[in-house]
């Protein structure tokens, strides 16, 4: 099996107000190529920390993160930047588009670091925007787009370099239900039709429903596959019935 992401005894501790806080402890897990993994857990469970460590935005206190078989800690800042550009597509909760650039220019940004000509960059970015059904919004600025459209531009930006995997941090957190569905359907299509590996952090059960695998984190620990936090079970009972059935085990719902 081709493993894209692997963590070994991964731990992360912070010192906050002179108190030592354990964000992650001894996390071991693997993400095979082509998987759509949803990392779930309540606030403070360590899911975003795990995502940040995978993207080498933060350094672990102990343990290892191997991405595409490479230990990223050994890379220098400049090499790491180049590596991120080549291998990761990142989607943020608040879209993080550059407000002074148009949709097309935003999507072209990661291509500025490639050897493509400006014309080729424009062609690639247009294709990516057409893929997310925003071919008619190329020259719109982020302020001229709806939240759902902004997130779709962000997805186009994340996939335009054809990265090995996509990391999505609460991608539907700032969207209404209809826009969230559009975005999640798009991520699922990227996974199913284009074979993209997706790791999505979410605390939304409905969003997790679109993933092929769900793993839960509780107080910094990754629960065994299929296990759900106790307090989450109680919370899950409050969500609509159509979503509730997905909670109990590893997801293969789609």
């Amino acid at each position: 099996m081709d493993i894209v992401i692997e963590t070994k005894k991964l731990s992360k501790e912070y010192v906050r107000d002179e108190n030592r806080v354990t964000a992650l402890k001894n996390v071991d897990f693997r993400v095979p190529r082509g998987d759509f993994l949803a990392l779930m857990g309540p606030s403070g469970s360590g899911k975003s920390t795990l995502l940040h460590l995978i993207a080498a935005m933060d350094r672990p206190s102990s343990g290892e993160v191997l991405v595409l078989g490479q230990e990223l800690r050994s890379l220098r800042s400049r090499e790491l930047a180049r590596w991120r550009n080549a291998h990761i597509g990142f989607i943020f909760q608040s879209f993080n588009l550059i407000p002074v650039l148009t949709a097309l220019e935003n999507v072209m940004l990661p291509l500025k670091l490639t050897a493509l000509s400006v014309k080729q960059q424009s062609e690639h970015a247009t294709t990516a925007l057409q893929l997310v059904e925003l071919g008619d919004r190329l020259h719109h600025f982020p302020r001229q787009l709806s939240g759902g459209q902004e997130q779709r531009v962000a997805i186009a930006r994340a996939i335009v370099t054809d990265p090995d995997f996509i990391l999505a941090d609460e991608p539907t957190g700032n969207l209404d239900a209809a826009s969230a569905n559009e975005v999640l359907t798009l991520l699922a299509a990227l996974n199913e039709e284009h074979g993209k590996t997706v790791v999505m952090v979410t605390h939304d059960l409905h969003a997790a429903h679109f993933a092929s695998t769900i793993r839960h984190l509780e107080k910094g620990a990754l629960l065994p596959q299929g296990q759900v936090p106790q307090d989450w079970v109680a919370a899950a009972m409050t969500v609509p019935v159509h979503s509730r059935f997905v909670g109990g085990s590893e997801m293969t719902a789609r």
Partner: protein
Amino acid sequence: MKIPLAYNLRNLAVRKTTTLMTALGIALSVAILAASLGLVNGLKTVFTGTAHPLQLLVLRKGANSELGSTVPTDAFAILRAKSGAARDSAGEPLASQELVNVANLPSVDNPKGMNITVRGLSATGIEMRSVRLVAGRWFQTGQREVMVGQAVAKRYPSARIGNRIRFGKGDWEIVGVMDGGQSVLTSEIWGNFDQISADYNRQDSSSSVLLRATDPVALDALKHSIEDDRRLNAFAITEKDYYDSQTSSGAPLEFLGIFVAVIMAIGSGFATTNTMYAAVTRRGKEIGTLRILGFSEGSILLSFLAESVLLSALAGILGCLLAMPLNLVTTGIGSMTSFSEIAFRFRIGLTALLSGFAFAIVLGALGGILPARAAARKEILSALRES
């Protein structure tokens, strides 16, 4: 430079008020610098425009100006007889015995009065200069008549044709206005040598003698011949060197202008730094995003530095535009050698404008380096958490 310049340009446009205020601060420094350079350039043009390349000015040994020099009339006769002197169409040597003094006239800028150079000279002296009559007529020998330069006519209300001005032993009637182009001659009053020297009781001497050589080789020979001649007790200096030395009159103003520009530049440099720090703080999330997309610390540093330089380039253009109208301004400066006012026009040419522009760019780069460094050094996670 990986991050497109459009990103920086549009950010400058988005915060247009801050951009404009910061740019204005730098622009004023640039304008002052360009004006100072334009002033000195204008002054140099006036002095160098006066000199004829083959003419020598003969002064008493030890004198540093015509005003402080005395050349006896018998020395003039010796000078006229020197070989190497050019001659006019009548075969007479091109040599002019001249008397220089000052008259005090109330001016537009200074109603209490300013000193104006009064030059007594002969028809040969006029022939040796590039001047032309623009109004009235030339003065007549034996009459208490004078000509005024065009700058004098413009800047001194009493120096109009038909008016009488007072210097020496009495009144003199202004009968004409002459144009000396971009030279100090346009700031002078001219009258007949004999008439003026009589008024100042200097019948047996002059202030200087102007002598034209036939060619550059003769010029050198003539100069050495005069300085080696013990009868004369005089030295000769080329007109060019004489007027070059007078450009030092502008040195204090040049120093003051540059000093003020530098002081203002320090202030506007800090304003640039402050503006760019604010931009870095406001765009923390964008910086974090750019880093996640793969842009290196170096790219971020260059991008913010470029933004600061773009801001200062805009200021540089603005400063040059502010300074350029000064090209139409004619002003006067008191010469430390002739103790009189010399009128000149600001000459803010390409060199002065490019110097001002380069000054702005350097200012932008220096003011932007620390904020750009701070932007590049932001931790990705903390940058992303900024609002």
